[in-house]
């Protein structure tokens, strides 16, 4: 039983980062969005998916941005802390 639980836990842990992960196309997309908003970034090196069309992107220059689509359908980019 404990073996099964452990295996499942490991599997979930293994899957989670992949889910949060590093799709180069998504990174490129976020990079473009941030650039379109005229914010400094350079390039998105990693991101975290917070939900459907909601991300926290980490830039090469250390900036972090909360990128999301608001209820009006506008893409918003806010500096994340």
């Amino acid at each position: 039983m404990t073996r099964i639980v452990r295996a499942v836990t490991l599997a979930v842990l293994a899957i989670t980062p992949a889910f949060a992960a590093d799709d180069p196309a998504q990174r490129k997309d976020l990079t473009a969005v941030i650039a379109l908003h005229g914010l400094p970034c350079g390039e998105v090196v990693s991101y975290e998916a917070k939900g459907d069309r909601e991300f926290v992107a980490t830039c090469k220059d250390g900036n972090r941005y909360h990128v999301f689509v608001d209820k009006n359908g506008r893409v918003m980019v806010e500096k994340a802390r």
Partner: protein
Amino acid sequence: MGAPAAPGASPGTTTAPTPASREPKAESAKPPAASTAEAASKPEAASKPEPAKVATNAASSPRPATQPKVEARPATQPKVETKPATQSKPEAKPAAPAVADAKPAPAPEPKPAVDAKPVAEAKAAPQAPAKTAAPLDIKSLEQRLKETPAIGIMTKLSLKNQVDDLLEKFREYHRGARKVALDELRRPYELLLMKVLSLLQDGDPALAQAINASRDAIWQVLTDREKFLQLT
């Protein structure tokens, strides 16, 4: 398209050799053209303003794109560029005697660079202008933009937001609600187009080219009240 054409045209350093080599070709190509006869029959004074006109058209970046389009030239870039060549060919002869003058000199400059590729195409171009006249299909461009894999979904949404914002400014302009000058709108329009083009140029160069070729046509739609209302 417009922007690259001007730099390509202006640095025509080999002005002297090319027009000389072109003249025989132009002469051979001319007999069927009625404009040649007109140009020849016109006095020098009449032909002088024409080279100046061509020179300004070729020099200003946005214009060359418009002019050929208006004249229903082929959509592809090289063909578009051949049109000014055919236009200015008749003028090259009258310009020759007046080479000493300061004004006609710049007129031949754009020609060499433009002409370099298709002398033979220049002949064929006048025959099939209406057929290839790329009619502006904004809906099609919009659809292609929506479907292109070159831009991510968030970027597309963001672009759409910016397009909508700009359209709203045009709406205000046409409504006369706010005092917006067209010049003020041209800049953001060009900027937005640059953004789109830079996003597309690597992933979907064909679409980028199509949009770039339609740049002035789209602007005309946006600035024309009737067309704009039809569009929106």
